[in-house]
């Protein structure tokens, strides 16, 4: 398994969150998650402006093998989606922590981030 970037926070359902300089939070799925799913063929992304609660289901990722809900690591409003994924969902497999991000959220409460798993704790979850 590739190294897990240590600037990310995680849900145990395999989503990652990264706090950006502008105060938004970028969300994607982990390398471990894309490996479990296998070749990804579709994503359903949320509408910009939509409000979501922490751990609410907000997107769907579908591989040849299975469909899976994607949960939001924090509460807030969707400000941007990665439209590249609509035509090239396979970049989630190739680059889960970088080009394969799903959406950005303007967080309601930045403290929620602190309560997520850090990369060490997530590593343990994904190896168990």
């Amino acid at each position, binding site marked *: 398994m590739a190294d897990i970037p240590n600037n990310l926070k995680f849900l145990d359902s395999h989503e990652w969150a990264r706090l950006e300089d502008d105060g938004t939070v970028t969300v994607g799925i982990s390398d471990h998650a894309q*490996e479990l799913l*296998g*070749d990804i*063929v*579709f994503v*359903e992304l949320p509408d910009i402006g939509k409000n979501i609660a922490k751990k609410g289901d907000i997107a*769907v990722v*579908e591989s*040849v*093998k299975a*469909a899976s809900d994607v949960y939001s690591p924090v509460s807030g409003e969707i400000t941007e989606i990665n439209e590249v994924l609509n035509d090239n969902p*396979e970049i989630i*497999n190739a680059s889960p922590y970088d080009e394969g991000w799903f959406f950005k959220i303007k967080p309601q409460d930045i403290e929620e981030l602190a309560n997520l798993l850090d990369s060490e704790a997530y590593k343990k979850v994904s190896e168990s």
Partner: protein
Amino acid sequence: MNTTYLNAFHHAEGGNMVDFAGWEMPINYGSQINEHNLVRQEVGVFDVSHMAVFDLKGDNQISFLEKLLPNNINKIKSLKKALYSPLLNYKGGILDDLIVYHLGDSNFRLVSNCATREQNKKWFNEIASEFNVEVDFKSDYSIIALQGPSSKAILDKLIQTNIKNFEVYTDSNLMIAGTGYTGEKGFEIISDKTKGEEIWHEIINHGVKPIGLAARDTLRLEAGLNLYGSDMTEENHPYDSNLSWTVDLKSKDRDFIGRDALQTKTDSPNILCGFYTNERGVLRSGAKISYEGGSGTITSGTWSPTFKKNIGLCRIDRNHPNEGRAFLRDKEINLFFCETNFLKYLK
């Protein structure tokens, strides 16, 4: 868990291993789509040694197979060819599907699915005893499937044969047949595991990539080939499973198991039909579909790497309209019914 003799190879190649009916098998070696495309466009090799091989012994093998199978063994009896047939119970329900190979003289071999091996072993022995035929279960045989448009060029590097589709070549305990489960030209190579290991590594050394079971499933579905346990079970019979061509009722004195029951089923109200949709998302096995005048169920559904859309098989009314609908995560999806061989229909 059971393993094939190539288990260490699969691990070393980075195979993602899963429990497949009690066997640890590679689902993919990274990307099932890349593996699928390799077989469609060039060539790939599968370890399918988890399937069950039964060799028959005795003088009455043909009589036994005439009784056992709805397809007529006499079509291949002196031809060294392979024949596909379902296996039926007395009610005409499908117990499994298999390929029977004529090995030469009056000797035959059956190759059936993995999950049904114990049940088949019992069933074959039960029927065979009436005919004084011995059923020799080969518990540790090697089955290698070399599949794809370049498969003949690779086979030529191993051995010189002229076998064509469904033909069988034998040399002591090595058997090569022009059969497969991908819709491509290909060969299945059966031998003991010592010979199998030698052949596998020779094929790999010619640059052929190993292919996992996930790609095997999308390849067979694009070719409209049924999967036992999904597209047909004991609750189904050949006429609602797109297999009427495997039931040979012509010779009136051939009293195969299930024959009487099938007489009443020839115009079954249900059929197995293909479907596809151009919409986003993948309808999968178990999903309900509806259409004007009826409803049905998807038996296999996947995303097709070749056609880049959702395809599958469903069981619906024989008299169905051209279009239907299904729900995918609360969204209504339009789908089109079509022939089961997508390689011909959608090309």
